[in-house]
């Protein structure tokens, strides 16, 4: 187990290194001179040089890369060109919207999908199964931001249960904050829950054909008992894979959904960054997003080892 964790940690570090190189290359190498790029065509040589100095963009590429990475490691994400404040301050506040939103949606998706998938697998080939499969097929096809718009009209405007947009902040109390995040989270979770429920169903059905289920039945377990005691944990292996992939979709989806609900999250920051050519903000936020995805992959790898003893012992 120890060796497995160490190996995964090394892999985590290498992934972060590679990702940071890619992002640095795209943002700071491809445009040529980032300072000139940010100021546009008409900027004078002096202003560009001043900005370069200002943003710490002097030195060779290698030096700049190490300054950037070193800064991030110590919590310094550079200075925003448009806001003229440290990017870390900008990001910190917004992280507290986007990450809880993605996690909230992930939780909803799992809580919805697993029982539904189980019921469908247990009733496979029956009407209820066909009904569930039809609904999930529809759920996958619905774009989450469009579904969000429908939710706003139904549950915020026609029936004013939830706020139509905006975020009161966590200072306003967890309840108010969660209430503001509920519609966005539901909209995000629906398509992902549909996918996950289908995966759960087919993973369970797949295990039903396995020899160890036959062994369990020969021991005297009923079909239901065999599924619960032996099918479930084995089915979790493919389900975990999908949960891991879903987090990155949810994080990306959160950024889009924020636009529907005018939530002050990373999405808002990054789109402003793009329109104002604030490369420093874009670079850092992208790195953060990728970091979150890689971190979740790492956590999922650890979860695999908890579910599957073969991983704990080998490697």
């Amino acid at each position: 187990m120890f060796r497995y964790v160490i190996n995964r940690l090394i892999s985590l570090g290498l992934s972060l290194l590679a990702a940071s190189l890619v992002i640095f290359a795209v943002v700071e190498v491809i445009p040529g001179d980032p300072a000139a790029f940010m100021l546009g065509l008409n900027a004078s040589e002096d202003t560009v040089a001043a900005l370069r100095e200002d943003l710490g963009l002097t030195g060779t590429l290698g030096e700049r890369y190490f300054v950037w990475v070193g800064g991030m490691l110590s919590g310094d994400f550079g200075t925003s060109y448009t806001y003229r404040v440290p990017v870390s301050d900008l990001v910190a506040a917004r992280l507290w919207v986007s990450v809880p939103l993605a996690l909230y949606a992930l939780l909803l998706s799992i809580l919805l999908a697993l029982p539904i998938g189980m019921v469908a697998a247990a009733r496979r080939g029956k009407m209820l199964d066909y009904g569930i499969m039809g609904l999930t097929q529809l759920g996958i096809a619905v774009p989450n931001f469009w579904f969000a718009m429908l939710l706003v009209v139904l549950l915020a405007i026609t029936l004013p249960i939830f706020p139509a947009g905006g975020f009161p902040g966590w200072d306003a109390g967890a309840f108010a904050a969660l209430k503001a995040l509920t519609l966005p989270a539901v909209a995000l979770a629906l398509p992902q829950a549909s996918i996950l429920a289908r995966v759960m169903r087919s993973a369970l059905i797949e295990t039903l054909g396995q020899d160890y289920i036959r062994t369990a039945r020969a021991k005297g377990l009923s079909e239901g008992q065999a599924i619960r005691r032996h099918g479930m944990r084995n089915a979790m292996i493919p389900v975990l894979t999908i949960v891991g992939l879903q987090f990155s979709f949810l994080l990306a989806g959160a950024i889009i959904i924020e636009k529907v609900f005018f939530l002050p999250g990373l999405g808002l920051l990054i789109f402003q960054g793009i329109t104002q050519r604030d490369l420093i903000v874009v670079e850092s936020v992208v790195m953060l997003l990728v970091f979150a995805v890689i971190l979740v992959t790492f956590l999922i790898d650890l979860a695999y080892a908890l579910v599957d003893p073969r991983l704990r012992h080998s490697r």
Partner: protein
Amino acid sequence: MTWPVQLRLGATLFGLLLLAALLSLFWTPYDVTELEIAAKLSAPSAAHWLGTDHLGRDMLSMLMAGARTSIAVALVAVGIGIALGVPLGLSAAANRGSLLDEIIMRGNDLIFAFPSLVIAILITAVFGPSALNAILAIGIFNIPVFARVARGAALTIWPREFILAARVAGKGKVLISAEHILPNIANLLVVQGTIQFSMGILAEAGLSYVGLGAQPPTPSWGRMLADAQTFFYGYPRLALLPGLAIVLTVLGLNLMGDGLRDLLDPRLRRAVR
């Protein structure tokens, strides 16, 4: 072999939208770049079957041309994924456990850490927004998907004895991959292709909704939704129509994928035989 119901239903749905998209290449009821401010937000009528939008553009024409954008972007992105991902996956499988395999798989993991939205953000930040960005972003994300599917499926074929027989005949890895592996994993790739196609439609809609995809005046469903948002309460039609268009296209493609899986899955076919 009869087609499963899902396949027929899916193919019909998607076929109709594809037809509309193809038709829009030559003809739409109105020019989609033509703004008719006087007729803005008009309800469906004989002149405008589905009404007009906030700039007086004909909704039906917009939807037809939007289908063209969505389908083209998603299709080219699937093409990129297959053209690059499948050869990568096949060569990783052919050289299983080698450095090449390791590099390809690590590269895959790395791309997986960049959701297509993030790729689109990066590209747009540097090159500015365009439909081409959406194609690139979704296409790049498709590469590891196809590489993984191809590698995984190829690995189940490689230990089979007919591959050993081909090696005894002196055939090399490239020829074996092309002649024996690819035809035997094509089913899976076709099914994955329809899935990625439908995901591409959704992703394109999302990207153009946040302004990272097709730019005006090129009509696109995501863009139409973004424009409709402010008018949604008063004119729900503006948002419902493009949304439904997306749902139907994706649903059609997914049904096709499911149907194809049933039709092509060798396990099921063996059971029938």
